[in-house]
């Protein structure tokens, strides 16, 4: 589970065994990870896994009880490098009574951008995100989704090298989420390093080069997306039926063939049992009389990996607790 070697080995963010305890529980425990320059890095985990705490420690908003946080190769902290970092916190807010454009200019100024430059960039991005007509309105007049877009713009006005986004897609409609994804991909192409947290695996799967899954404050898995899928191993098959697939039920429930089945509705993702041959499965399905619409060998989805890994972690934890 070592980080994959990257063409440019420069580490933009480097966490070394950081631990954060709150009264009564450990939020993050001995977490190490490093983010190379230029990648889109997904920090994944279930609710309460410690994603936000980890990000807050990256930003130096919280000080880890143990361990070291290095940004751009030193440990001076997020505020020291704030001009190079754009940050969208999970708990986001704007000055409600201020005009949209004014808020953006002010927030850019706190990053050291001159007013005139900030104004020009704000106008550009407001245009790009369909908010140009709202630039002179007060923030409180905007819908929640619009406010979120304004917040996203505010993280980019100083053209940061590193963008840290905590749950950027939460609460966005599909159209706005798509716009956001496009911009993230575009920025990444331009060389910006992007770290974002989410529990939406499908989004992460589409845009991440690199993922790190954490659960209960510990790292479960860390690596390049392709590598992670390869390491996870196993044979995975996607099947879909034209009818309800009732005739295939016996076959799918045969634990000698299928270890696990996730029914996503339109199709099901099957993890085959050790040593089972997909060819046998196909034959059995055809013989059962089920009408197949899709039968495809696939890589395990991030979703599947997430469930396997986090589920195992939780079970293990349960076992530990019951033993104790």
């Amino acid at each position, binding site marked *: 589970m070592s980080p994959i070697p990257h063409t440019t080995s420069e580490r933009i963010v480097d966490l070394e065994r950081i631990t954060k305890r709150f009264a009564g529980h450990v939020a993050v425990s001995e977490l190490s990870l490093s983010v190379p320059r230029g990648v889109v890095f997904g920090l994944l985990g279930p609710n309460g896994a410690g994603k936000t705490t980890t990000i807050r420690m990256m*930003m*130096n*908003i*919280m000080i880890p009880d143990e361990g070291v946080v290095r940004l751009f190769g030193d440990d001076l902290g*997020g*505020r020291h490098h*704030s*001009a190079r*970092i754009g*940050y*969208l*916190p999970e*708990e*986001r*807010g*704007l*000055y*409600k*009574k*201020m005009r949209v454009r*004014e808020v953006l200019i*002010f*927030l850019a*100024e*706190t*990053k*050291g951008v001159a007013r005139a430059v900030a104004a020009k960039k704000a106008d550009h991005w407001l245009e790009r995100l369909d908010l140009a007509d709202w630039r002179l309105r007060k923030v409180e007049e905007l819908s929640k989704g619009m406010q979120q877009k304004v*917040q996203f713009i*505010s993280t980019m006005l100083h053209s940061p090298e590193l963008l840290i986004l905590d749950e950027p897609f939460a609460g966005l409609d599909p159209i706005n989420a798509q716009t956001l994804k496009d911009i993230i991909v575009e920025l990444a192409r331009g060389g910006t390093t992007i770290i974002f947290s989410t529990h939406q695996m499908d989004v992460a799967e589409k845009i991440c080069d690199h993922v790190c899954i954490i659960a209960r404050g510990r790292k479960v898995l860390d690596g390049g997306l392709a590598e992670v899928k390869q390491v996870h191993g196993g044979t995975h098959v996607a099947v879909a039926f034209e009818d309800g697939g009732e005739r295939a039920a016996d076959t799918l429930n045969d634990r000698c063939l299928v270890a696990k089945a996730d029914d996503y509705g339109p199709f099901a993702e099957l993890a085959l049992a050790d040593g089972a041959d997909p060819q046998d499965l196909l034959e059995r399905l055809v013989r059962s009389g089920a009408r197949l619409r899709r039968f495809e060998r696939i890589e395990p989805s991030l979703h599947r990996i997430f469930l396997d890994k986090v589920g195992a972690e939780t079970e293990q934890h349960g076992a530990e607790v019951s033993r104790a």
Partner: protein
Amino acid sequence: MHKIWAVVRREFLERVRTKWFIISTVLGPVFMIGITVLPAVLASSGGGPRAVAVVDEGSGEFAARLVTQLGTGNRFTATRVSADGPRASEVLDSLTRTVQAKTLDGFLIVGPSAVESGIVEYRGRNVSSLRDMALLEGVLRQVVVVERLTRRGIDPAVVQEAQERIDFRTSRITKRGATAETGEATFFLAYFVGFVLYMAIFLYSVNVMRSVIDEKQTRIIEVLVSSLKPFQLMFGKVIGVGGVGLFQFSIWGATAALLFRYRQAVFSAIGVSSEQAAAVQMPVVGGALVVLILLYFLFGYVLYSALFAVVGASVNTESEAQQAQMPVTMLLVAAIIMFPVVLNEPSGKLAMVMGLIPFFSPIIMPIRYAASEVPLGEVVLSLAVLALSTLAIVWLASRIYRVGILMYGKRPSVREMLRWAKES
């Protein structure tokens, strides 16, 4: 520096642009003049002459003289009602009903031995009007004294002369010699200065608290502290809001100066004759007093806004702040409570001590300075104590502030806050 300036600019402009600012700038002086001048005006005028009856229970000439004397001023219209013998209680009952019906304000009961015993009773609706009672008592005293002296055979002309009105004038002596300022004007000025300082310090430092709560409540604080040091943020906020205060003062000051300069034109415009206008007393506000007011306002405001910033950082909502700000507000209110004592004896021991305590000195010292001569050494000492305390409190407050702004949930105790200050 650029970043602090951005914060200052935002705090300043966002406030100056609000309706609240415009309204308070226009109505502020109206309100303050109202609150200081109105009670005096109301107490001195308060409607037309008072109708008073003098119930004569057999005092002879005394009651008649009292009626005449009451009639000489324009405050009372007096009528004599004789109530001799058995009818007395009937008369009193009917008079009481007349008072209740509001056709009469009250009545004096003059017994047969009123002059000897000096006992006269007044029953009326307006007994709580201190000014009316003082006037009545004055007239009564005068008539009784004349009566007593005349009975002892003193020449009425001498008695008359002894009764001549005394015109008591006060004027204030400062280091620059006697001024034209009267005692009343001095008192008024000192009271006004104290009140304005109290209002300004309170309103603007509460504004700082509101701003802190707003940033916490909207959660923008997390973005801000990722690029600004908490101290930069707090400092910028205090300067920005204080700037609004100074700006508002300047508007008021300039308006007052212009009005004073062109007072003749103003008076004639509102139909006041130049003679009457000349009679309006203007307290002399020296340059030293203005400088002192500004210095004490600045330090007092910074000190209190640091305290209020801590309150803001320790709560989650405005309504929680209502309760949490009590201890700080009490300090300011304590200064107000001391007003009468300090005005009564501006050089007294209590006034001196209050003038040295940094929580009170921003309000107490300018009052003392306006009301009397304060030794330069005392002013310097008081300012030095205030400046040092302000520095210490700002330092302590900023340490509590930077922990508090990221804390949500249960309100911390004072002990917890001090722990934050120690650890951060």
